[in-house]
């Protein structure tokens, strides 16, 4: 198989539940669940049997209403939370033979610093608000083993320039910045170590429309230039339409449909997707 057809990241049967489950929800069909929730024991099944591939250089969109499990999935992929069960393989890590969820804490840190970058909806989660912007990037570079101050400064400056943070503000702390600028610093930070995979969770949600557009433009531009693979999560199908090559639709912790983005938009199969597309136009 050629490079184009080989996934960079393969996710297989990922489950994430909050709670231990009970006889009712564990033994029987999941029909007993109300949305993703067991009415008997209160267990929440946030991600159920999620399987997908991410290919080199593609943008994969994940869309679904709030509570459908998108952010939980992103948190599991970035090791912010542990999965309940499931596997994930990265082609460039140990030849794609190691389930990254079962790696040691140290190896997980390595993957987080070298293979993945993540941008959160809430900049407080991705940035140290009191560090300088360039310091935020240095932090990530140091975590990946860099020690050369001159090199780190150069890299930080280049990255921040790339995301349109003016040179004279690079020493400033993100807490002084607008929401759009904070997201751009977060993106620069996530790209510090040239990860092949970028995870974006609702990165434009809550921003003014024009600021939203400029952040999306930036993402598109970076994706083109760096040819990285991106998973972009949004409740907003408009965002997905703008960026994603392929799209996965989530509802109540499950993937209900996936396909080429134009197919999802023009020929949605699942009632929920149809409703979502309908409300877009």
């Amino acid at each position, binding site marked *: 198989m050629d490079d*184009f057809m080989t996934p960079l990241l393969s996710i297989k049967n990922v489950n994430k539940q909050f709670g231990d489950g009970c006889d009712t929800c564990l033994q029987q069909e999941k029909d007993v669940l109300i949305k993703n929730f067991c009415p008997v024991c209160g267990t929440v099944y946030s991600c159920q049997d999620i399987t997908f591939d991410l290919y080199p250089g593609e943008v994969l969109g994940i869309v679904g209403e709030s509570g459908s499990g998108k952010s939980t999935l992103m948190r599991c992929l970035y090791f912010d939370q542990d999965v309940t069960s499931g596997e994930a393989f990265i082609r460039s890590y140990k030849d794609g033979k190691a389930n990254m969820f079962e790696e040691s804490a140290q190896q997980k840190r390595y993957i987080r610093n070298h293979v993945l970058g993540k941008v959160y909806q809430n900049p407080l989660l991705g940035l140290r608000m009191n560090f300088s912007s360039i310091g935020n990037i240095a932090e990530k570079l140091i975590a990946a083993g860099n020690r050369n101050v001159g090199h780190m400064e150069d890299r930080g400056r280049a990255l921040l320039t790339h995301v349109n943070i003016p040179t004279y503000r690079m020493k400033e702390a993100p807490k002084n910045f607008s929401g759009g600028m904070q997201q751009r610093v977060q993106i620069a930070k996530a790209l510090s170590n040239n990860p092949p995979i970028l995870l974006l969770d609702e990165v434009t949600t809550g921003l003014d429309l024009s600021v939203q557009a400029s952040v999306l433009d930036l993402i598109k531009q970076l994706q083109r230039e760096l040819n990285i693979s991106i998973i972009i999560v949004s409740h907003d199908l408009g965002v997905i339409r703008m960026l994603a090559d*392929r799209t996965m639709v989530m509802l109540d912790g499950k993937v209900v449909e996936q396909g080429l983005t134009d*197919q999802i938009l*023009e020929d949605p199969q*699942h*009632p929920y997707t*149809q409703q979502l597309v*309908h409300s877009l136009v």
Partner: protein
Amino acid sequence: MENILTIKNIAKSFTLHNVNKHIKAIDDIDIYVREGEFVGITGKSGSGKSTVLKCIYRTYLPQSGSIWYDSKKYGPIDLAYATERQIIDLRKNEIGYVSQFLHVMPRTTARELVQQAILEMGHGRESAEQEAEKMLRHFELDPALWDSYPATFSGGEKLRLNIARAMVKRPRLLLLDEPTASLDNSSKVKVRELMEQLMAEGTTMLGIFHDLEFMKNLCHREYNMQNGRLITRVEMLDV
């Protein structure tokens, strides 16, 4: 000559769950296209022409039947069952689609839009720049517009850009969904000129044109549709 496209028994209907509707769009469609041909689909609005093209491009998922395409990279491949990744690859490198609608990318200038089409095929930046300029010039898009955003363009300008972007790739198979419908006459002539040139270079085309005059002396075969079905097939001999 070999068939580049053999469509057998394609059917497509839409189930709209939220309004409890089932719409039969096309049924029992057989079409073949030989390499290097120009094949036209005609029929009234609503007869299913675009649905056929969208099934080939996989914007629609066909329900049944097969769409055999003779790919340069994959050999014979059924587009109805190809993986999404294969479809993405084929769209980048072999199969083009032009409609009246331009899907603009944000913050992308006209020039970049055309360049990208070439870049995604793996060509170098320099040749992309040259080819893009050539194509923009051919379509007489005002050079003052080359570096501005298409969102601000007039309908005709957008359309010319759209066609330029698809044609610059010199696809093996080009699907055309009434691209000239809203164009003025001189633009139509431009499109036709370029189609002739592409054909001479080996591009095969399957197109819907309202204006039959436009297809005259270009078309090898015409399929006429009515109510989602093919009614007639006419072979034109003197092309």
